[in-house]
């Protein structure tokens, strides 16, 4: 069963043996980056919660020593609040509470020049430059009789720092600089039986409206978790997707094989135009699966070809609905037909190249020694095709796990769903990378089991050929 022409590779001189390694190196590197690494990442996404634990700090700073950790989702009491200059300006967590402080320059009521920092809550920005950065403003007046009419200006963007001066309400100021502060909270919560307290950045917390309690939204330390896999398994679409995927496999593959073998036998029977028949049978090989889904949609949709033909023949009075939630089996039938239409070609090509490897004389020997058409098929052709058929079978099994666009085109993706669809739904609609990754890993796992069998087979074939 060789399609690869013998032309046995000749050993080259030993000193040149680095050449092949050099030649295959780019492809190996490429596959390592774009196949092996993503695969590892997929597994990690599926079972590793990157934000499982939040480390609490002794002080309101990422550099201070840890004071314990709380799991994601733990309820906490907010004890104190502090704003700090973010470690480096850009790397603020999304969702972090921030305060902006302006460096202001103005004159106090006594006419002394004041240069220091004030919180954005104290300054109304009046002028900005082209980039939108504030350049000047006025001090906000305080409301309420008991309020201090003057606003303190600090040496640093921090309320605990030294007061360098005080400005009157509505005093004009220049703003040469601004700083963004990250708010930290001193929180206290339970980790099992233990009570832990410490500082945590607001970005990792979800603060309830009262402002006094909250929960840990995201941790900063990863931990193994089955939660995503559980969520996948408990998802209401998981079971239907599994069942449909395997049901489609069972429905599609046998029909495909029968059709493919018939096509291959026709091609091999040396009739006229058989190269044309081959090209026609091979067309679906290059067809986009999305397009094929739509093609079959055009047949099964209510105003489509199936109803048109049936009505023209007078077999029905009104167009029948097929692709609806109430006629799920019709959707399955449509997907089945579309997939048989689309993917039979590859099985056919594999079977044809297997058939070509069977010598004509062997078949004639069968004929001379008394085997009729059926006996020849059963005792000679099929056994000799076995390796090709096995390979095609595994390949088809793995390809069947990737059925995606056809299902979307024919069912919209909900009414009937398959594993690849759920991967997409979790990723795209539900924005849940981890569960999507769990689906990916599941599909890869099923494929891997098939691939192992496949590799075994290839090896035993090569041994048999040796």
């Amino acid at each position, binding site marked *: 069963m060789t399609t690869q022409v013998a032309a046995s590779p000749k050993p080259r001189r030993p000193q040149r043996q680095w050449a092949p*390694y050099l030649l295959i190196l780019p492809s190996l590197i490429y596959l390592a980056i774009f196949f092996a690494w993503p695969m590892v990442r997929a597994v990690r996404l599926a079972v590793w919660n990157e934000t499982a634990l939040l480390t609490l700090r002794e002080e309101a700073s990422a550099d201070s020593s840890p004071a314990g950790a709380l799991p994601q989702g733990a309820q906490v009491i907010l004890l104190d609040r502090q704003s700090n200059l973010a470690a480096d300006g850009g790397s603020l967590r999304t969702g972090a509470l921030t305060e902006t402080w302006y460096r202001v320059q103005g004159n106090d009521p006594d006419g002394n020049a004041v240069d220091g920092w004030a919180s954005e809550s104290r300054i109304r920005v009046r002028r900005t430059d082209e980039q939108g950065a504030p350049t000047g403003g006025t001090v906000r007046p305080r409301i309420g009789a008991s309020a201090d009419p003057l606003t303190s200006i600090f040496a640093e963007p921090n309320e605990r720092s030294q007061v360098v001066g005080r400005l009157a309400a509505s005093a004009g100021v220049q703003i040469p600089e601004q700083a963004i502060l990250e708010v930290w909270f001193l929180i206290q919560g339970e980790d099992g039986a233990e009570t832990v307290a410490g500082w945590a950045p607001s970005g990792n917390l979800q603060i309830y409206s009262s402002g006094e309690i909250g929960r840990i939204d995201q941790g900063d330390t990863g931990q193994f978790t089955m939660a995503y896999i559980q969520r996948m398994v408990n998802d209401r679409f998981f079971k239907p997707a599994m069942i449909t995927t395997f049901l489609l496999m069972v429905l599609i593959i046998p029909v495909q094989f029968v059709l493919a073998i018939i096509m291959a036998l026709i091609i091999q*029977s040396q009739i006229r135009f058989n190269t044309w028949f081959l090209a026609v049978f091979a067309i679906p090989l290059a067809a986009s699966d999305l397009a094929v889904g*739509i093609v079959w949609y055009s047949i099964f949709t209510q105003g489509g070809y199936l109803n048109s033909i049936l009505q023209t023949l007078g077999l029905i009075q009104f167009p029948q609905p097929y692709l609806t939630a109430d006629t799920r089996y019709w959707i399955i039938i449509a997907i089945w037909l579309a997939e048989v239409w689309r993917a039979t070609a590859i099985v056919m090509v594999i079977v044809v190249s297997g058939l070509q490897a069977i010598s004509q004389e062997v078949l004639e020997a069968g004929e001379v020694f008394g085997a009729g058409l059926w006996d020849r098929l059963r005792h000679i052709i099929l056994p000799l095709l076995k390796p090709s058929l096995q*390979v095609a079978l595994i390949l088809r099994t793995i390809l069947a796990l990737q059925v995606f666009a056809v299902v979307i085109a024919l069912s919209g993706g909900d009414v009937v769903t398959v594993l690849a669809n759920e991967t997409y739904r979790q990723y795209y609609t539900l924005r849940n990378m981890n569960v999507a990754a769990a689906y990916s890993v599941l599909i890869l796992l099923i494929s891997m089991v098939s691939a192992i069998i496949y590799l075994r087979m290839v*090896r035993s074939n090569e041994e048999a050929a040796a």
Partner: protein
Amino acid sequence: MTSSAAPSQSIAQVSPEMARLRARARRRLLLGRAFIYLAAILLSLWVLAPLWFIASMALTTPAEVRSYPKGVLPFIPFSFETMRFFLQSRGIIPGLINSIVVAVITLALSTLIAAPAGYAISRYRYRGRDAYRLSILAVRAFPVVILAIPLAVIFISVGIFDQVYSLALMHTALTLPTTVLVIGSVFASIPYELEEAAKVFGCTPVQAFRRVVLPLVLPGIAAAAIFTFVMSWNEVFAAVVLTVQNRTLPAQVLVSLQQSPEPYKFAGAFFLLLPSVIFIFIIRKYLFNMWGQISK
């Protein structure tokens, strides 16, 4: 002394029994042939009819597309209006451009990386050659598309998410194993003796490759490249996962499918099918290089 052969005493008198047998045998032969042709034609119809339907939907007026019952006779009236409607829909032309860009980058990258590897697996015998071939086969059989999910996460963190070229990187990973195997079989079909002969007649190894091997393998490699193009053109899962703004054509059609009217869908399907069907006819000679490989 016997010289000539023919004991032609009876010039095959046709007995009625023999005539009957002969007629029966002829009939059976003819019947068998007819049966094969019938099967071939039926199966061709099975393949061609859906294409016929979609073509006739795409090449008529939108009003005709919406009509019911549809006539089986196509192209009445023949019109590019549906196609125009589709091509003028939002995101289609940019999608088309993106698709072509992605496919061309994929084709170039894939061929560039795969050609040396294909040469190595067909021309050298070295430790690890079988392991390499087996792993290529394994990757080839894997549902690589599914890796689009973790790749999306990686691309986001690296900051190349939603880029046409990052999708091309993914597609290259998808097509690379096939391309390696196909190019390998193309090289294997050129006897190494030719290269040796070229060297004997005075070529350097590089010259031998350029003047003798390259002209012979070029059509095969071109076929492989075309096939790579088609694979990238058709791919939709990774495309829809890895792009948001810069959708390729199939991704654009897929995400807008549920909100779109039927003329849009049908024209889209026809437009997606068109290049692949043309390509398959161009490269049909190489089909077995392409897929027969897998059963090795």
